[in-house]
C-alpha cells in the first residue's frame, strides 16, 4: 500500500452550495469532501514522500514548490469560500488518514461553528500602506545648508554634522510614517468588524522601496465593502500610497479559540 496522507484545505458548513466538480488541489490531486456533524472538510490525498515532515522541511525552502503549493491551496479555499462561510486551514496540514479528519470535525465541531459564524456574510480585505522615505516631510530640508564656510575649513566635522542631521531627519520621517500607518489602521477599524496586522513585507518581497508601515487584514461585512474601499482611497490622497487587495477568504480571522491561546501563551 502506498504511503499517503490526507491534506486538509478548509472546513465549511454543510447544507449550502458546493463548489463545482473537478476541483483539484496540491499536486493536481482531486479534492474530496468528508462530511461529519454538519461540517464539510475539503481534502485530497497526498504522497508522504513529498508531504512527510522531512521532505517538507526541504521543499518549504524552495520558492517554486512553495509558490505552486500555496496557489493550489488557495485555489481550493477560494472555490469553497465562493459557496459560503469557510474556515481556511493553515498551509500544509496533513493527517495520516480520513478518519483523523472525521475525528477532528467531531471533537472541534463547536469551535469550527463559532469560527464560521464569525465570518458569515463577511469578507477579508488586505490593506498595505507605503510611505516614501525620500518624500519631503516637515523635518527634512536644510541639512548642511549654509555651512559652506565651515565645510571648507573643517570638512570632517561638517560631514559628521550633515550625517547626524540626516539620521535625525530619517528618524523623524520614520516616526511620522509609522504614525500614518497607525492612523489608517485605526480609521479602518471603524468600518471593519475586526482587524489584524501582518508583519511588514521586506522590500525584496514587496518589490517596492518605500517603507511598508501597515500590512493589515480586515474583516468587513459584505454590504460595507464599498464604504471600506472608499475609506481606503481617502488615505491614498494624502500623499501616502495605499494598496487594497481582496476580497480574500477569511484566512486571518478563523483562528479557533484555543489557537489564540496557543499563539499568545506559547514561548
Amino acid at each position, binding site marked *: 500500500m502506498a504511503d499517503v496522507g490526507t491534506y486538509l484545505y478548509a472546513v465549511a458548513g454543510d447544507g449550502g452550495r458546493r463548489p463545482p466538480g473537478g476541483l483539484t488541489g496540491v499536486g493536481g490531486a482531486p479534492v474530496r469532501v468528508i462530511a461529519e456533524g454538519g461540517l464539510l472538510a475539503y481534502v485530497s490525498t497526498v504522497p508522504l514522500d513529498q508531504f512527510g515532515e522531512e521532505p517538507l522541511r526541504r521543499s518549504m525552502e524552495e520558492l517554486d514548490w512553495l509558490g505552486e503549493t500555496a496557489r493550489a491551496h488557495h485555489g481550493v479555499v477560494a472555490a469553497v469560500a465562493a459557496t459560503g462561510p469557510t474556515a481556511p486551514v493553515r498551509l500544509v496540514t496533513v493527517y495520516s488518514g480520513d478518519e483523523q479528519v472525521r475525528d*477532528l470535525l467531531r471533537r472541534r465541531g463547536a469551535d469550527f461553528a463559532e469560527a464560521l459564524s464569525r465570518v458569515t456574510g463577511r469578507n477579508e480585505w488586505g490593506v498595505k500602506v507605503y510611505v516614501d522615505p525620500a518624500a519631503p516631510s516637515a523635518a527634512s530640508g536644510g541639512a548642511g545648508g549654509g555651512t559652506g564656510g565651515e565645510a571648507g575649513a573643517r570638512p570632517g566635522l561638517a560631514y559628521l554634522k550633515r550625517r547626524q542631521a540626516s539620521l535625525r531627519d530619517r528618524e523623524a520621517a520614520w516616526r511620522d510614517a509609522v504614525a500614518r500607518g497607525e492612523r489608517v489602521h485605526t480609521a479602518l477599524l471603524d468600518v471593519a468588524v475586526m482587524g489584524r496586522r501582518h508583519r511588514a513585507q*521586506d522590500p525584496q518581497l514587496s518589490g517596492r522601496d518605500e517603507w511598508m508601515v501597515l500590512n493589515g487584514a480586515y474583516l468587513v461585512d459584505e454590504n460595507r465593502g464599498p464604504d471600506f474601499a472608499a475609506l481606503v482611497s481617502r488615505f491614498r490622497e494624502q500623499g501616502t500610497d495605499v494598496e487594497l487587495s481582496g476580497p480574500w477568504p477569511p484566512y486571518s480571522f478563523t*483562528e479557533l479559540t484555543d489557537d489564540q491561546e496557543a499563539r499568545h501563551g506559547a514561548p
Partner: protein
Amino acid sequence: MAPPEPRGAVMAAEGRIPAERVALVDLLDRLLAGGVVITGDLVLSIADVELVRISLRALITSITAETTGMTNVRFDDEPAWR
C-alpha cells in the same frame, strides 16, 4: 439553467480572486500566518512558528543574496532595512 462558465470567471463574478492572479507574497502572508492551526495527531502542520520563519528567511535570502548580498533579515515590527 445558466451556461457553464470557467471557474475563474465565476470567481471573478463573485468578487473572488483567482489563484493565478494573486500576488504570492500577499498569499503567503495569509497562508503562513493565518488559517486554522490544528495541533495534535497529524503527520505535519506548519503551526510550528520556527518552520515558518525558516521558510520565509530562505525565501528572502534566496532573492536578496543575488541582488544586495544581504543575509541577515529581521522580522521585528520595525523593518531592518530602514
